[in-house]
């Protein structure tokens, strides 16, 4: 089932003296349950594309349609609400809320969505257990390692059962052990929860795990390759 569609999307930054064409005429479709990597060298437009898909930025031209909704048609507050209900984010530098514990960070989006307390608690425990952090649920981010923080970030993104998760270079700040641990968790959750993962990466280990690899170069889709996984 198609959940995300990009039609002739362009993004031009014209703030500087020379306009920068960050994303050029990108047309893509994503199905439910995909585990897709967007790859490309620095400056190729990976992060810009993810920001556009996530509704954090608006395309200069073209359309982004998520589950039948054209993001450009939404008012700013509707767009925030749409993100809350449909999209999970995992950032390169974790970006957990520093004043909340791991448990509270995971609960946070569910509380914004007004989930009942019981369901929230159960889901939080289930996810923290899934990422192997049930023992550290009452620790604040400052007491967790980078890898642990990123696992909490993944749990936070997954908690409200979004349509898909956007992860911008999720392993960039992690050592190899933490990175492979995180990838295993993401892969497992993708399989078990049937949630689409779209991530940008440089990391060959991440690319290796992906079942679809979209290569960008100078803002254009250079290649879009679906890989048959062992599990399929």
């Amino acid at each position, binding site marked *: 089932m198609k959940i995300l569609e990009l039609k002739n999307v362009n993004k031009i930054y014209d703030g500087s003296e020379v306009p920068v064409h960050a994303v050029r005429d990108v047309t893509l479709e994503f199905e439910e349950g995909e585990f897709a990597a967007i790859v490309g060298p620095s400056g190729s437009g990976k992060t810009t594309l993810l920001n556009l898909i996530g509704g954090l930025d608006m395309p200069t031209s073209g359309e982004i349609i998520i589950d039948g909704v054209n993001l450009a048609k939404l008012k700013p*507050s509707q767009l925030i609400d749409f*993100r809350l209900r449909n999209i999970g984010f995992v*950032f390169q530098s974790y*970006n957990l809320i*520093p004043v909340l514990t791991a448990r509270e960070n995971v609960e*946070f989006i569910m*509380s914004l969505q007004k989930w009942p307390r019981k369901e929230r608690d159960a889901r939080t425990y289930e996810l923290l257990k899934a990422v192997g952090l049930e023992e550290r649920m009452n620790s604040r981010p400052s007491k967790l390692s980078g890898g642990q923080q990123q696992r909490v970030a993944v749990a936070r993104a997954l908690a409200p059962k979004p349509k898909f998760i956007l992860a911008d270079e999720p392993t960039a700040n992690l050592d190899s052990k933490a990175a492979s641990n995180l990838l295993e968790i993401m892969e497992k959750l993708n399989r078990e929860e049937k949630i689409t993962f779209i991530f940008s990466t440089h990391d060959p280990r991440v690319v290796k795990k992906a079942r679809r690899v979209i290569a960008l170069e100078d803002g254009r889709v250079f290649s879009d390759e679906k890989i048959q996984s062992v599990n399929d």
Partner: protein
Amino acid sequence: MRDNFKIAWRNLWRNRRRTLITASSVFFAVFFAIIMRSYQLGTYDHMISNVIESYTGHLQIQHPEYQNNPQIDNSFDFNDSLFLLISNVENVVSVTPHLEFFALASNGPQTKGVAILGIDPAREKTFSNPENKLVRYRITDEALLEMTQSGTFPASVLKKLQENKDRSYSSRARLELELGLAITETEKYIPEIIRFCQVQNGFLNEDDNGILVSDRLARYLKAEIGDTIILIGQGYQGASAAGLFPVKGIIKMPAPDLDNRLIMMTIPAAQKFLDAPGKITSVSINLTDRSTRTIKKGLDRINKLMEGMGTTVKTWYELNPVLYQQIQGDSQSGMVMLGVLYFIIFFGIFGTVIMMVAERKKEFGVLISIGMQKTRLKRIISMEMAMLGLLGLAGGMLAAVPFILYFFYNPIVLKGDLGKMMEDMGWDAVMPAKWFGPYYYIQALIVVIMILLATLYPLRKINKLKEVEALRS
């Protein structure tokens, strides 16, 4: 709401030191503003109570020419029916006729120009109550010598008695206040001091021919109770007035200016002295309070009542413009100082807010990216700012309470040069704190306004925040 509060509270303590410094700056600003204002207003109240409420009154009925030309010729007739009419006006608490004039007072070789106040002893009780001002204790050379020789008093108490030599007191409370002894010393030695310093005094009857002399004037004239004072002045319509008046009592006027020059006698005695039967120069009226509104209302009603009677009604600030202007000037300079203090504090708070916004721009971006509405984020930040202000505000207001309570009941008595300077200016050298009132609560309003103004900055920043730019910061 609970989640918002939790996040706001925890955010507040993210940078504990900065929060404490900012809250402390609000605390000290509020604390000093309250204490300073309490002393200022307390001192004004004390002055007004001494000078206005015990002498001129909040309102005064006079002959239209009397203020510019205070002569007995500018007097008017007064009777009991007029007294009753004025007494029944709303908010009027006391009505007292006065016959005021100037004369030369002489006792032996000492002569001085004095102000003479003809009073109705019974009605005056509800106004300035001069009976309460009779000197009851005086620390004379003889009393000091006797106390030293008695061996009852330790050196510390004798030193304080020596410092207050030649001072007179109309009450035990005032004696205790000015001596400033420790609590244990007060309990132990005040009864003994009273025994040595007590003076006999008397008061006027309704138709008395005697006079009450203010303490400092009595000392200048070297007059004691039982002495006879010669008064010479100008009587009604150019008649000359002269008479001998026995001193019945010595009164301690709290305002030094009055204490230096006041003599009181009964109105009939004054009328006889001036050859002005039935005449008075003013009717002093005290109201329930001295707010502008009450004074204006009282003025209008009494003006209406006295229409066509050849009199005018004046407010206390018209009668004593010097005191009014002194109070206004001092009050305004005090407010300017407080304004400067709060201005500095505001920029301290604003600096904290600017730093906080700069540090947390990325976090704001993350929160909005993952689905927090800007209105909710603004609510959290506003709560955080309110808590920051409230910490300092509540602390400052609470910390000021014991000071106000203590100094309201135990006013500061200025001694030495400062005290003398105040007395020379005609003020009682006592600084009481003012009881809680609008000045106390207004500090909360000022801090709330400061916090609201400072909060506008992060709110505006959040409004204009673009998620992608914030995430990149």
